[in-house]
């Protein structure tokens, strides 16, 4: 086997090892983080939805949409 292949195999083993190591540590970190957050900074469940009025401005329209859908429908199906 060429030297290049050897270093390729080494790279494969080290690389996959590091990928697993990194993502496994991320699993641990997430579990720890979630436990801490859920314990000390629990979101009020509805807060998640209501907490973002700006982006959610879209969501707010939801009520309006119904009204409009009706309006459009009425407008389109009016006798001509």
């Amino acid at each position, binding site marked *: 086997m060429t030297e290049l292949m050897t270093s*390729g195999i080494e790279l494969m083993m080290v690389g*996959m090892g*590091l*990928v697993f190591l*990194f*993502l496994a540590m991320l*699993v641990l*970190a997430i579990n720890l983080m979630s436990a801490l*957050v859920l314990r000390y900074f629990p*979101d009020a469940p509805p807060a998640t939805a209501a907490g973002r009025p700006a982006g959610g401005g879209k969501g707010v329209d939801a009520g309006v949409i119904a009204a409009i859908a009706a309006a459009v429908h009425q407008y389109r199906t009016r006798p001509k």
Partner: protein
Amino acid sequence: MDNLLSLWHSTGLYNITGGQALMMLVGFLLLFLAIKKGFEPLLLLPIGFGAILSNIPVAGLNDEGGLLYYLYFGIKTGLFPLLIFMGVGAMTDFGPLLANPKTLLLGAAAQFGIFASLLGALALNIVPGLEFTLKDAAAIAIIGGADGPTAIYVASRLSPELLGAIAVAAYSYMALVPLIQPPIMRALTTEAERRIEMQQLRTVGRSEKIVFPLLLIGLTALLLPSAAPLVGMFALGNLMNACGVVDRLSQTAQNELINIVTIFLGLSVGSKLSAEAFLQMETLGILALGAAAFAIGTAAGVLMAKLMNKFSKTLVNPLIGAAGVSAVPMAARVANKLGLESNPHNFLLMHAMGPNVAGVIGSAVAAGILLSLVQ
């Protein structure tokens, strides 16, 4: 007469080389795939058009002073792929992953496609006429990450002359995920396994979604700084979206900015589709290795899921392992579709989104490793 001759000498018809003509056809083929076949049109359309433009004789769009020459700076500096990655980060919802973090391991396993095809590229050197250096092999292997910006970023750093072929292969195979993955997924799973129903994911709160990108960049900084540009911009985009206080920045990153950069990136990548670089044995090797990388990554993800089921009492449906290659959200949809075939009440989509976005992180991590170890 003399004048007419000089006019004729200035036409493309007179100056065109066979290679340029072929590469323009390749460009038209990419446009056909993008428009008619729906192959990742957002990228392959500008790439195909860039290929046509850069192979027009005389025009010199690729030469110093030409349009594509200037646009290519955005790739050379890494700016374009990193900005796209930021936009992708802003579009990514880590909720499903945070609800079931162990699916990160599926995203890790699927990166085996990268390293196996790296080895494959080196092995291909026994074919006469092929000569892949370690850098070339690493750049090709990243196709297995199934993630466009990551592939372009790594290729631009390690093997710029192969960039065109690598980007085309990466996006093409991403579009082919619904064809490549199912047979492998079926072959490696039993009907019973495909029927496994997973327990519903808990709702993940806003705080966890805000902390996650910070955790991600923190861990990257401490352990794998060479992945910091990719992971960092991805985490920045994700944070902008998750935090909810800079929605106007997040929206711009997800829309206008990513659109502008996509046009520029596509054209620049297309400018690397020159005859000298593309019409080579190497390109065939790249296409073969890319397909292998996708297939191996898919298999590794599925097998990892089966392995995890041996050690855990909460079972995962092995189909979602295939989503670990990323190709967001196509691979997750494929897993969902196959799940429904075996069990019409089994909606795997949200479960598959976990490994799917894990695959994006996984390949960015793998990219960092390659950039760090291959010099």
